[in-house]
């Protein structure tokens, strides 16, 4: 999923302070799963914002609504019924959702409530870790299912570097050395001769080096 973390409260209070009536929009997908911007988080944030502003003598009207997704225009239409009189929108979705809200409601200032972090997976309850950087040319079949671009701090395609220490990256004992993981997996799979095949220099165009990316499905697009 796309992971995110709620922004510090003082930053969010600063965003909404100038307004009288705001729409706080959550998302039922990724940000719900990582407990950053789903229905529950919308409720908590609205309560926190109200109580914070009340102390300054300001009574703010916060409408709470959680959409199925914010990255599909169809779901956005639900907001139309609630947009009347709203003078600003705060979205708890990832950066994709925030931008779609802004695109749909051009005359309302839109603020992000979370910092979108990375594409990752759940390691255990409450812990998510980066797994994919969307390089656009997946080579996981060659590396035992472990991504050297997302999980190696130097994105080495022919690692490990000389700093790998007891299975951990040189930058921190909390970060696994991706190439140790890859090597261990290749051993388990009996694919160790793969290791010495040199991976050639990567074409970064598919990774965004060629500009902002788009997918057009001829069979689906009108």
């Amino acid at each position, binding site marked *: 999923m796309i992971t995110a973390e709620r922004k510090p409260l003082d930053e969010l209070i600063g965003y909404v302070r100038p307004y009288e009536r705001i729409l706080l929009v959550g998302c039922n997908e990724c940000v719900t799963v990582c407990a950053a911007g789903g229905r529950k988080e919308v409720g908590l944030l609205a309560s926190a914002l109200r109580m914070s502003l009340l102390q300054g003598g300001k009574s703010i009207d916060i409408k709470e609504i959680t959409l199925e997704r914010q990255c599909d225009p169809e779901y956005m239409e639900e907001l139309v019924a609630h947009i009347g009189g709203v003078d600003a929108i705060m979205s708890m979705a990832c950066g994709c959702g925030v931008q779609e809200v802004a695109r749909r409601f051009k005359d309302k200032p839109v603020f992000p409530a979370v910092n979108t972090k990375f594409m990752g997976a759940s390691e255990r309850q409450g812990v998510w870790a980066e797994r994919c950087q969307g390089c656009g040319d997946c080579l996981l079949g060659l590396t035992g299912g472990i991504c050297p671009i997302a999980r190696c*701090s*130097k*994105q*080495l*395609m*022919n*690692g*490990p*570097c*000389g*700093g*790998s*220490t*007891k*299975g951990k990256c*040189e*930058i*921190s004992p909390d970060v696994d*050395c991706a*190439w*140790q993981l890859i*090597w261990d997996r290749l051993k388990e799979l009996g694919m160790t001769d793969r*290791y*010495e095949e*040199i*991976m*050639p*220099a*990567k074409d*970064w165009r598919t990774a965004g080096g060629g500009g902002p990316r788009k997918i057009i499905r001829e069979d689906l697009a009108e």
Partner: protein
Amino acid sequence: MKTDSILEKVLTSGNLAVTSECGPPRGARPEVIKEKGELLKGIVDSVNVTDNQTAMVRMSSFAASIFLKQAGLNPVLQMVTRDRNRLAMQADIIGAYSHGINTMLCLSGDHPHFGDHPMAASVHDIDSIQFIQMVKAMRDEGKFQGGADIDNPPRMFIGAAANPFADPFELRVARLAKKVAAGVDFIQTQCIYNLDKFELWMEGVRARGLHKKCYILAGITPMKSVGMARYMKNKVPGMDVPDEIVERMARTPKEKQPEEGINICVETIERLKKVEGVAGFHIMAIEWEKKVPEIVERAGLLPRPQL
């Protein structure tokens, strides 16, 4: 001979090569580089110039190498993939070659986490092995990485680093094999304190004949104090300092520790001379360059061959 590199000449002649290193200054101070160079003249065959080492900004390796070249030394241009994409690297390589620099070291580079700009974006457009491939193709095929012809290709003697002491040990010979397959000409190892482990690595290297396909220079760094020994043992990733070394330094009275560090250094060189496959020594006396002449002399490596 693939290049005009003095280092290549010394190595191919069968002599033990000696290289050393100097770190450029943290400011626009050409005189610092020139002074370090003066200390090493006639003492070593080539001098590595580090490239933003430990991710701390210093005068660029390229600029510092030019000063050394002008002073009559043979610089080894170190270049890390952390700070430049393949365009900038190739541009710097043909630029450096145009200044007469013909020996270089292809490295990944320490992570910015360790340096004075942890907030910087790392590049890593290519890794060190792809880097070796790229420089080899520039030299031997006369082509840029993108495929176009180079007008007067740079004939670089290509080096890389090897660390027999990093984990996992079982991969360290295979990694050298990859660099050799990519086209590396010479290797400088991480500094050696654990001679047993180094010899074990060399066994693996020899078993695959890799010592015949590239020249391996053993890395040496003198200890200044027991504090330095402990620091290197505990705080530097990829460094293996056996307890005996630390204890030996600890037993020595403080004012005699630098001398003992040099003694250990010279003993290490003598022992490594006997290891088949060691083609020379790379002496990294970080911020202690003035001791290099003494080390080289006591290790019986002077005078340097004039070829």
